[in-house]
């Protein structure tokens, strides 16, 4: 197979755009799994829920999917806070998070997916917006707006989260919880409240990630499953709890996946993330920028 230069460059650019989007998808899990130690495997299901909300409002009222997702943020935050409360009361407090907590999230994933199937069916759904379709051409490089807009929104989301975590009082409190919950309790702060807020934020990001997903590709309820491997591969490769690490890992995965699908065919790309995950776990479990 001969590799032409512009094909290669375009594949890399497409990969970087995809990587930006992956960063948005991973941001939530970076908080919940990386900082709070909550293995929320249902996160992709919440993302798909976000996609369907964006789809439903977009098709019926013609509102831009990204605007919908921003308006829906408080609802997702509340959903996250409720889920955390149930999780805390039933599992974390009793020290049963490893087996039953995981089964709980798995059940949530399943319920969300099947409910969406019952309501919307298994057809692929897509949204309509002005920026889906046209591309910008920069010399050899093609920049489809369908990919560029989600990537920019994703980077903005990621940047905002990083600023929030490192610069604000609440953000630092979340980092403190991730480091030493007991110490925080001794300083008369309520770690459960902080974790609830953090988990709410983590689920809120799923709203935006969902809207971005349905802009990039048509969505059906079980699409989320392809993202489980990707999300956790990015999280682990970046280093748990490290947002910059997650961004680098997301870009890396995006580029490798894009190269794989350009040169070997798109049906192989889901396997890439798993290769990343296994290799990281086997050789550098701490990740690129791990603690």
């Amino acid at each position, binding site marked *: 197979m001969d590799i032409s230069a512009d094909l290669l460059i375009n594949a890399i650019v497409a990969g970087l755009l995809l990587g930006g989007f992956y960063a948005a998808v991973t941001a939530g899990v970076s908080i919940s799994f990386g900082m709070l130690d909550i293995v929320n495997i249902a996160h992709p299901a919440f993302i798909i829920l976000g996609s369907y909300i964006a789809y439903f409002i977009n098709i019926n009222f013609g509102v831009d999917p990204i605007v919908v997702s921003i308006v829906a943020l408080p609802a997702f935050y509340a959903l996250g806070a409720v889920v955390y409360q149930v999780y805390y009361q039933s599992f974390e407090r009793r020290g049963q998070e490893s087996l039953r907590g995981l089964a709980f999230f798995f059940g949530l994933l399943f319920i969300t997916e*099947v409910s969406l199937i019952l309501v919307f069916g298994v057809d692929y759904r897509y949204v309509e917006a002005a920026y889906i379709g046209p591309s910008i051409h920069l010399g050899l490089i093609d920049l489809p707006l369908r990919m560029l807009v989600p990537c920019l929104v994703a980077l903005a989301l990621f940047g905002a989260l990083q600023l929030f975590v490192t610069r604000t009082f609440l953000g630092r409190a979340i980092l403190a919880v991730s480091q030493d919950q007991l110490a925080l309790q001794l300083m008369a702060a309520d770690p459960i409240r902080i974790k609830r807020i953090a988990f709410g934020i983590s689920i809120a990001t799923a709203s935006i990630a969902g809207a971005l997903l349905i802009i990039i590709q048509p969505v059906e309820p079980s699409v989320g*499953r392809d993202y489980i*491997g990707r999300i956790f591969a990015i999280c682990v490769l970046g280093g748990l709890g490290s947002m910059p690490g997650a961004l680098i890992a997301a870009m890396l995965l995006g580029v490798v996946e894009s190269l794989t699908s350009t040169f070997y065919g798109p049906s192989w790309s889901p396997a890439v993330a798993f290769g990343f995950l296994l290799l990281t776990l086997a050789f550098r479990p701490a990740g690129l920028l791990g603690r």
Partner: protein
Amino acid sequence: MNALKFSLIAIGVGLLVLAFAHWLGLDYFYYAGYTILQFIVLATAWNILGGYCGYVNFGSAAFFALGAYSSVFMHKLYPLPVPVLIVIGAVVSGVVGFGMGYLTLRLRGAFFAIATLALAVVLQTLVVNWDFVGGSRGAYIIRPETLEFAGFEINYIEYLFVLMLILAVLALATARTIERSQLGFGFATIRDDEMAAEASGVPTLRLKLIATTLSGAFMGMAGAPFPYYIGYLQPASTFGLEYAVNSIAMPMIGGTTSWIGPLVGTILLGSLQQIATVTISSAVNLLIVGILLVAFVIIAPNGLVGLVQERLRRRGP
């Protein structure tokens, strides 16, 4: 009750079920019964790792499909009798289970769970891209109507039913034996406090690897006869979340600490699903499984067996 006695009783119960099925003479009973027996094997296999060691495997579908697809592979290469295929399926899934465990079990438990979740996606990708076993179009396997055995003509579906019955008895007997052996006590120490177990000299990694290999092997065995049962094997349904969720929900609902839990859970949930699939729809039936799973892990963490035990304890002296 020792292991021999238990096996004899289990075989006796199995023969009774078979005699009943034969007397009923309904093909539907064999089809429905096969599915339930298959889930007994899957749930018991899941429980060896999940219930005894406390490690969650979300990839039951992957191990099951490995067994099924190794049968398809052998069928295209050189048709062998189904019992031999079951052994091959066990070896393939057991080896993959060992490999997965070796790469991820040295780390925190959550990594193993995530890796098994991703395993299903990757194996599905492999199968979809592998034309020899049917690719994304799926594979047809035409099973014979009957089978000649010692001069008798046996209905083929009855033959598969008997094989699955034997596997179910074998899986239950293995689980029960483990529970009462040193191995089982070792597993329990891992479940309760792995750090303490390691510190007191329990070879935790070796025990965990034994559990993943054994558990994977039984799932592969459950999958091996599946292509002959279903006739048309398609990647999307073979790797479906249905297998993963059922093999977790059944032990969780029945109770994870003893061999009887997965059995009770499977019989209840399996029969419920057979009824719901026929009377309502298969999507609703999966929704019921999901809701029951979440409800049970929140309200009754020790499953039905746990509820009964608690009641007995309260009533007792």
